[in-house]
């Protein structure tokens, strides 16, 4: 007797896949729709994990777009926030935040001007509070820079070949009267929490799907040839606003995001998914890719994801070794400690847990 499973490749069977020596051998990305060429121009965006993807892709020879770069009159100072993402949007944790950003960039909604004064006298853009760590010299500067930033986001969408969006969270805090979402609750990094206007929202699958559909449509309208690659960040929630375990909220959020990503992949030929989440969190990994806090991803985990990505999606560059892009460490420091510190520094959510 035969069944439709007979004669299928090994990656369709758990027993064989689980024995894979690495993520490629385990066949994690066997279901890919398309691969990329080394000439393709990538625009990574998303949660803190997306920062590492952007950096590692560039270090391995991938072309990462930059539409907002340091001007010669500006010092080479990390506090100005250049070189992390294609434009200085900072971490974008939710599909809703990305949708609202693109809507502002393309004039589909008015630019959001939510700026607060920091204790050091600098101004912060609450929609990207850590994207420009130095802040802005004046409110007028913050406004002008946001306008320029939205222009840069527009140019990014119009010129990119691939949008790589790492979905991070479903939980968000919104400005209820303004109708927009923050990347992190006001008061955690800058400003003050105001229960009268700041409201918690936890997206459902349908919400995330709707936001992603809108993102895909906005991109397609301006750049018909751009492809979209979705991933889900394996990094757990630092804190949950739901009255339940953060572990449970993490599972719920990641499940929702994974399901939503699947919907988009099924609906659009030019949208695909890369299984970073599965590589890190799946049973195959046996937990070996977690950092000490069991939340962040270790350097080994990032390498495993990138090696699988390059082998499957950028085979022209798959043999390239990353150029030295590891976080700097002082003499005598364990490089993995420096890496962990860098991972922690990338994540806005760490400001939620002050323990």
């Amino acid at each position, binding site marked *: 007797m035969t069944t439709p499973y007979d004669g299928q490749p090994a990656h369709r069977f758990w027993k064989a896949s689980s024995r894979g020596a690495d993520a490629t051998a385990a066949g994690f990305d066997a279901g890919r729709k398309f691969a990329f060429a080394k000439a393709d121009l990538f625009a990574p965006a998303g949660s803190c994990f997306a920062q590492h993807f952007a950096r590692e892709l560039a270090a391995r020879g991938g072309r990462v777009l930059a539409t*907002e770069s340091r*001007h*010669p*009159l*500006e*010092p080479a100072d990390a506090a*100005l926030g250049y070189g992390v993402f294609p434009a200085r949007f900072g971490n974008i944790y939710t599909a809703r935040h990305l949708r609202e950003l693109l809507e502002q960039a393309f004039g589909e909604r008015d630019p959001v001007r939510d700026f607060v004064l920091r204790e050091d006298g600098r101004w912060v853009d609450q929609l990207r509070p850590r994207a420009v760590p*130095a802040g*802005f*010299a*004046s409110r*007028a*500067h913050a406004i*002008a*820079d946001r*306008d*320029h930033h939205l*222009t840069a986001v527009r140019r990014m969408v119009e010129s990119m070949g691939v949008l790589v969006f790492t979905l991070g969270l479903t939980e968000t805090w919104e400005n209820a009267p303004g109708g927009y979402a923050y990347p992190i609750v006001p008061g955690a990094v800058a400003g003050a929490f105001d229960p009268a206007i700041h409201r918690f929202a936890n997206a459902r699958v349908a919400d995330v799907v709707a936001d992603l559909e809108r993102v895909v449509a906005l991109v397609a309208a301006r750049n018909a040839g751009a492809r979209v690659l979705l991933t889900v960040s394996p990094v757990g929630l630092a804190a949950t606003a739901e009255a339940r375990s953060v572990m449970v909220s993490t599972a719920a959020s990641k499940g929702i995001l994974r399901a939503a990503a699947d919907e988009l992949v099924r609906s659009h030929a030019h949208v695909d998914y890369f299984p970073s989440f599965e590589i890190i969190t799946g049973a195959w990994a046996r937990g070996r890719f977690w950092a000490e806090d069991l939340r962040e991803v270790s350097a080994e985990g990032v390498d495993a994801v990138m090696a699988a990505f390059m082998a499957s999606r950028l085979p022209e560059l798959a043999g390239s070794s990353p150029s030295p892009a590891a976080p700097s460490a002082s003499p005598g420091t364990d490089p993995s400690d420096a890496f962990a510190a860098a991972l922690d520094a990338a994540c806005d959510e760490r400001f939620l847990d002050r323990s």
Partner: protein
Amino acid sequence: MAAEFLLLAHSHGVAFLDAVTDWRARVPLAGTPDPRFGSTFQGWFGGTLPARPLELALRLPGASERAIVAWVMPPGGPVGHLVEMVPGPGGAPQPKVNPAYVEVLREWRGRGPVVSMIRGNEHALTMLGRFPPYDFVDPEVPGVAAGVPVIDEGLLERYVTPWTDMVFHPLELARRDTGNRALHVPPPPPREKAEGARHLEEMGELVRQFGFVPERLRLKWYRRYCRQLRARLECIGCDVLEAPPQALTPEGLLREEFAEGLTHGNRRYGELVAAQVDAWIAGPAA
């Protein structure tokens, strides 16, 4: 007749000198014709100006003749820098004072105010398009260009401070060594139509290579320079004039009819400045 004030003049003092003094009768300028400059500055670099201050007649409209002592100093001339910034022991720039300046101040001690028209072109390079397009926010010049990076105005101080050093240190010394009132006259604002300047002075080749940035950006750099300079000079009790409003466009640029070459005011401008200086001289003592 006692000289009323000591004038320290680089090129931005020529408009004043031409308007209200007899300096050209006293010191004929000579030299090979220089096509980079108009008639006002022909011979300016000829090296015929004395290395010491000289007494000049001051002729203001409706007033009897007065006298001033003027030290007129073209660049590269016999005087050199009044105060030069040189690397110090730790590498940080520190002022090095011209002994001739110390002597002039000592001779002027107790005799009357010091009026400075020194330096003033340090910010001029900002008018050139040497960098990719940009803008910055300025509290005195509204508007920011669309579609260009917006430089943090807090970062600009590092560029402007060295320019103000060149005025601050000489005047700090003047205030300290003479104990007299001091007034600084900044250069005129950027001219309204830089592209229309017949004489590009020393910047001709640079203009051909880089072109000009928009007028609003030129004005922003000028206003920033003036504000930073004013703040430093006021700390040492030195007053600072604002450009005469009659010579300015509504936006604050120098009107064409008051311009000389790419960066200077003309004789008509000098007349307006002379009236301002005269009012300051007559004003309350510091």
